[in-house]
């Protein structure tokens, strides 16, 4: 199990970044690097601050809810090698990285849609490597997944989409289901009466994402997983969806794992960021640690935004 320095951070984050920098040991004679770091901090100042607020609220709980232990996976070529990751209850962990580095694969491993070749995947205290297909279906009910393209069932109305997991897994009456669907649609800022009878094809990209989130959270899962929640959206909608994910974390205390290459929104919502590169996790820690990191690749990744 890998514990990262960020785990010791129970105390509120330092109010100014200057203090933290003074504490951090720095190699002599690299003014160029230091300049770059300052630039990065300035650039992400707003996002970092917003992130801090969220962190404080969830700092209380520390129990691990999703763990990857030395996970390796290969298909035709190796996808992940010796990847370890701990997500604690109430945290929002963003898995970032370039395209094709196995980010979405990580989500599929957590959902047990894929099995690791070696290593263990633990969800809510249960090792899910070797569970049967039927057991996996039950474990997945603890998790709500939001797909990149929303993956709404296009033969069903918005109402039926959100009601689907409720009909499958709960004994709720029709009235209770309708109340729950309305509640979830309102939570994602959609007007239930306007959208409920529409088909997914009639919705815009941002609305589809929101219905996808509403469907994912319908059975009140403890864990929400997001696959590129903001990709393909305009900057304004990206902001809306990011705020929505933060609202979910804040008000419902759900644990979130977000796969994203959108580093800007990652900084806003993440408790921790895991950076995947070349099949490995090259960085895992808080957004502050990330901007402070001297690692060349981390710097390049942030600089490339």
């Amino acid at each position, binding site marked *: 199990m890998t514990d990262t320095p960020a785990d010791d951070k129970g105390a509120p984050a330092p109010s100014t970044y200057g203090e933290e920098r003074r504490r951090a040991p720095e190699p002599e004679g690299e003014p160029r690097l230091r300049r770059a770091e300052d630039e990065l901090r300035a650039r992400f100042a707003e996002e970092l601050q917003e992130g801090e607020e969220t962190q404080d609220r969830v700092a209380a709980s520390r129990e691990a809810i999703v763990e990857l232990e030395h996970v390796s996976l290969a298909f035709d070529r190796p996808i992940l090698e010796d990847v370890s990751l701990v997500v604690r209850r109430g945290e929002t962990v963003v898995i970032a990285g370039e395209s094709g580095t196995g980010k979405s694969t990580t989500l599929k491993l957590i959902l047990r849609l894929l099995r690791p070749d070696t290593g263990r995947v633990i969800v809510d205290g249960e090792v899910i490597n070797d569970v049967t297909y039927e057991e996996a279906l039950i474990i997945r009910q603890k998790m709500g997944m939001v797909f990149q393209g929303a*993956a709404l069932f296009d033969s069903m109305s918005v109402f039926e989409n959100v009601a689907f997991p409720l009909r499958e897994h709960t004994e709720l009456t029709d009235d209770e289901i309708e109340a729950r669907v309305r509640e979830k649609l309102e939570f994602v800022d959609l007007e239930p009466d306007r959208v409920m009878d529409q088909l997914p094809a009639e919705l815009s990209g941002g609305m589809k994402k929101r219905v996808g989130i509403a469907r994912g959270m319908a059975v009140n899962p403890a864990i929400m997983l997001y696959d590129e929640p903001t990709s393909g959206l305009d900057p304004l909608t990206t902001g809306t969806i990011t705020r929505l994910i933060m609202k979910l974390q804040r008000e419902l205390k759900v644990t979130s794992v977000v796969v994203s290459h959108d580093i800007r929104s990652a900084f806003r919502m993440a408790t921790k960021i895991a950076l995947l590169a070349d099949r490995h996790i090259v960085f895992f820690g808080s957004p502050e640690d990330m901007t402070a990191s001297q690692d060349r690749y981390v710097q390049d990744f942030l600089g490339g935004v």
Partner: protein
Amino acid sequence: MLAVQEYFGLAAKAIRFIVARPFYIGDVIQQMDAIGVESLGIVLLTGFFTGMVLALQTSVQMAQFGATMYIGRLVTASMVRELGPVLAAILVAGRVGSGIAAQIGSMRVTEQIDALNTLGVDPIKKLVTPRLVAALVMMPVLTILSDTVGIGGGNVIATAYVGIPVGLYWRTVWEQIASGGFILHYIPSDFVQGLVKPFVFGGIIAITGCFFGINTKGGTEGVGNATTRTVVVASVLILVVDYFLTQVLLFLFG
């Protein structure tokens, strides 16, 4: 080889789910509508013309022996035992099998199958089993209707071209049906043979469509490939299985 194993694995799982809760009755009815009711027009039309052409051809042949009064028997034997089931099945494979593959294939490429999985629902149970049940029920129904209309089409030609009275035509039809003997005293063995086939073909169509749909890879192009393969594989399977099934049925019922 692996694909064959997967194909039968899918079939076995889909069949097992027929008797397992929850039952998606709504989905089954919807599929019955899509597979059965919406195919009715095309199946009836082709059945009718097949019956007519059978009557026309046999009338020419039979005229050489002066046996044109047996047109009814020949049309009935061909329609009920062979052409009714096979033609209806091939049409439904083209119309419905491709539709199943396209629908499930697009669900695969837009991650809707993954979504079902993550929502804790087995896609085979939710998607494949209702289509299988609907096809198993509707294919025999379609075939009976196709047979009936086909024999009726034969009647039109037999009466209009050859001048066989309607009453005589239908009496020869019944003679043919009765000639195969009865099972359990009441059910003509020809009917049994004629209904075992569409039942099996219905299963082939549904499973083939679902199999290629679920295994769709590579975006919209993959969906196109899946539909094409479904029609080709299902049609070939229907014709090959028809031969072996006929052998078995002839052995059993004569």
